[in-house]
């Protein structure tokens, strides 16, 4: 995986959608961002993501857990006077982080569930009980969708990225256990 190449592509994509110089650093996206207001701009700052990308420095952001705090509310994109697609850019960078194996566990778990059951929330007995109390029929089970989704995951980058995340986690766990063993011996 060539991160540099992908970053170049993302910058190029951004430059194509908007004039590269169009971000005049007005900070409107930061003011509109609920996460930035709550965590403080020093923790989360959408304009910094735009700036870093335009300057070819976005690689530094990929390993930062704060990249995933974005709620995808698109307030930044909607308020930007220059129509910079800030939240779309953040998603592009998250995709790139995923291809390096960096993605929050809850997101990975849900996507794996989508691929095995066809849905983010699979029908459960508990759900069907609540439904029957309201006179609703049980949720139909149709596994055909899941099979198609698995094919789509293989034909796109999705499967590979999920595997990369697993691989990275295994490597990290291994590194951790080696450190712990080392600590025990000294």
């Amino acid at each position, binding site marked *: 995986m060539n991160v540099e190449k992908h970053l170049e592509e993302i910058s190029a994509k951004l430059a194509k959608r908007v004039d590269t110089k169009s971000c005049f650093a007005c900070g409107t996206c930061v003011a509109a961002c609920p996460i930035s207001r709550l965590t403080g701009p020093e923790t989360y700052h959408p304009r910094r993501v735009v700036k870093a990308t335009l300057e070819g420095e976005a690689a530094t952001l990929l390993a930062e857990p704060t990249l995933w705090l974005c709620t995808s509310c698109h307030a930044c994109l909607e308020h930007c006077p220059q129509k910079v697609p800030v939240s779309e850019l953040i998603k592009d960078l998250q995709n790139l982080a995923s291809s390096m194996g960096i993605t929050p566990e809850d997101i990975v778990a849900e996507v794996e569930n989508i691929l095995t059951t066809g*849905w983010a929330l699979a029908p459960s007995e508990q759900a069907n009980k609540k439904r029957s109390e309201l006179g609703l029929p049980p949720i139909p089970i149709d596994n055909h969708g899941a099979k198609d989704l698995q094919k789509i995951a293989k034909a796109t980058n999705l499967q590979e990225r999920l595997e990369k995340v697993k691989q990275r986690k295994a490597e990290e766990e291994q590194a951790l256990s080696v450190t712990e063993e080392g600590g025990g011996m000294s």
Partner: protein
Amino acid sequence: MSNSSWALYMGCVIPNRLPYMEVAVRETLQYFEIDAHDIDGFSCCPNPLTLPHIDHHAALVISARNLAVAEKQGMDILTPCNGCFEMLKGSAVCLHDDKELREEVNTILAQTGHEYKGTVKVKHFIQLLFEDIGFGTIAESVIYPLKDLTVAVHVGCHILRPSNLLNVDDAQRPTILHQLVRALGAKTVQFPDEMDCCGYGTRPADRDLALKMTGIKLENMKRAGAEALVLICPACTLQFDLMQRLALRDVEDKTPLPVFYYPELLNLAVGTPPQKLGFEQHRVKVDPVLAKLL
């Protein structure tokens, strides 16, 4: 009224976690005689808050598969979930406008035996209420006006933004839900940061931060004089109803705020018996408000 025949796309959160919302949707469709059908073959939309963040192209293909399923039946898609709406409508618009992209997507879809020609329209259930049924018809149908009720409304992000794709209401100052509530005879308040996210979107990365966002919003609504909150999205409902007790943990005013799904109030106003609507499945008790209304 529109002549479309609708394929009803319920998604997964409503049927599994919030079936009372499904009841309210189905009662409304029946009441206004909307031609909507349950069809086979749909999968996850997929959830715009998770899958596209790993691979947005895969998300587009999965979404296109759902559009193809409806297209084959000659139907348009009607969905009551903001997340499903954003995903499916966003994909439908992109795939309609961009032939090259559609071809690219179809090469992958062929492996699943589907093809998408780009013809399906996607509508949010709330959009159907004001565009196809209309404020006037709704107001005329009211037999039990919700007078003396003052509520806050929370529209949710994913029915509005990105507005260039979704194009439902003013994305910065939406008025439709306010108008729909007023059509039933209730009053709405305005409160600071009304347009902020409910918090749900940041849950996978930081649960506490998500709850903090929910708590602040609840506090702002109560300060503005709301006796209840009216919503139209299942994700917002998980945050504001199911998670409310946790969300109020760190704010000063811990009085519970009853939460209603707009179509529940609509059903009450047009005379659907309340026993049918499953209010007992709400996490935050709605009895004080019901006592006032009924």
